[in-house]
């Protein structure tokens, strides 16, 4: 039986993981390889590294980091953030990333999804969608640039479009729930999961183990991503999985 995946997300700035301060047992809490190995050992099914560097030097550091992670890690990982061209995609995948995640650049240039999928296969191209509920229209709208810029795109229609273009997976973040720790956005997640035939990773809002159960059972997500609750040790990947297993959810 296919397992539901638990995916810790690590924010990386200039080649260093930020937000990792609570890991006292690690000699270097900002070392991407050490953290990747820590999460792997804890039972993470996959990892996402999100590059939040502002400079091009920072971005170049990312390729080096990807190489080091790939040399050590024996589970899949995705790299996102600031990927604007097929050239960026090639560099990161050749450095050993299993998938790249496109967000603002896909909205600005949807053809990038198709180009990437044609070149490397759909399974390498994840489309990240940041969505927020829009009260007036009664729909979810797509946001770009880390949630700072609104677009006119309807999240469900956009999800269908990116899959048609070749996205092999959708990483869906609810801007409404992100950082709230009140649980994932179940309606949005289910709507997107029903709308497309590729796996959906739910993100934004994880606060406790039962939130993961809800997003798998009610939200129909295939995977769930969380950052701060794992980084700050509010819970661990292992305890979330133990809880899910007890509730009858297939986990690795």
């Amino acid at each position: 039986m296919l397992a539901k995946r638990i995916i810790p997300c690590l924010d990386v700035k200039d080649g260093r993981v930020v937000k990792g301060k609570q890991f006292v047992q690690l000699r270097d809490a900002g070392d991407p390889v050490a953290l990747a190995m820590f999460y792997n050992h804890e039972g993470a099914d996959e990892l996402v590294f999100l590059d939040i560097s502002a400079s091009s030097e920072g971005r170049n550091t990312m390729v080096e980091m990807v190489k080091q992670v790939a040399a050590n890690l024996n589970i899949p990982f995705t790299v996102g953030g600031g990927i604007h061209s097929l050239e960026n995609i090639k560099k990161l995948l050749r450095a050993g990333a299993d998938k790249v995640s496109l967000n603002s650049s896909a909205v600005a240039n949807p053809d990038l999804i198709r180009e990437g999928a044609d070149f490397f296969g759909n399974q390498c191209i994840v489309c990240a969608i940041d969505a927020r509920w829009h009260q007036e229209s009664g729909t979810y709208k797509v946001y770009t640039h880390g949630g700072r810029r609104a677009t006119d795109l309807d999240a469900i229609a956009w999800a269908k479009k990116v899959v048609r273009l070749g996205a092999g997976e959708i990483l869906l973040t609810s801007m409404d729930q992100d950082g709230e720790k009140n649980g994932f956005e179940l309606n949005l997640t289910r709507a997107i999961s029903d709308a497309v035939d590729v796996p959906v990773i739910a993100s934004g809002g994880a606060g406790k183990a039962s939130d993961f159960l809800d997003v798998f059972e009610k939200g129909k997500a295939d995977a769930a991503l969380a950052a701060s609750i794992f980084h700050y040790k509010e819970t661990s990947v292992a305890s979330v999985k133990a809880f899910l297993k007890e509730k009858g959810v297939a986990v690795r």
Partner: protein
Amino acid sequence: MMIGVVDYGMGNLYSLSQALRRLDQTYIISDQAEDLDRADGLILPGVGAFKDAMRLLHEKHLSTYLRTFAETRPLLGICLGMQLLFDESEEGTLTKGLGLIPGRVVRFSGVSEKGRRYKVPHMGWNTLTFINPNSPLLSGVKPDFAYFVHSYFAELKNRGTLVAAADYYGEVPAVVSRGNVYGMQFHPEKSGAFGQALLRNYLQLACRRSESSACRKEKC
């Protein structure tokens, strides 16, 4: 003992080569038959489209070479590399494969027997069931999760070639073998400790079968 990784331009060889490095395995990566011929066993990786892969293998004169190699030495296909071992694939237009294991590669229908839609690709961690626990590839390991990413799967002509299977709206061949030819539909290099154990088993059987007596003394 030397492993050859067939580099025919399909997919990312970095992760696989790093997995070999972690297993302390010496390897060469090449698209030249004369280089690969130094190897005691080959690995045929691959990500992408079946048709493109076969075209590249033909262009590089590797398709005939791989068949000859497998007469005496072990060959392991991974993911698309496993699918290439079969007679033919329905991906795109019907394309002939290497014909080393009888069967045809077909697409997941995306609709279950009960008429329910399901997701394609089959992506993520799925459990294996051992059909032939005596296979040397499964030696000393217990059934566990492996990491899959694929939209096509092999329909076997001969069930005797099935070593392990996953369940995804039907039985999906996950490990196959016939003579010196082995295939893994999942990515052992991405399947944690379990994947590493299966890869190690392949290296050991390549080592045992190697004609080099030096190798036998060294590592097996």
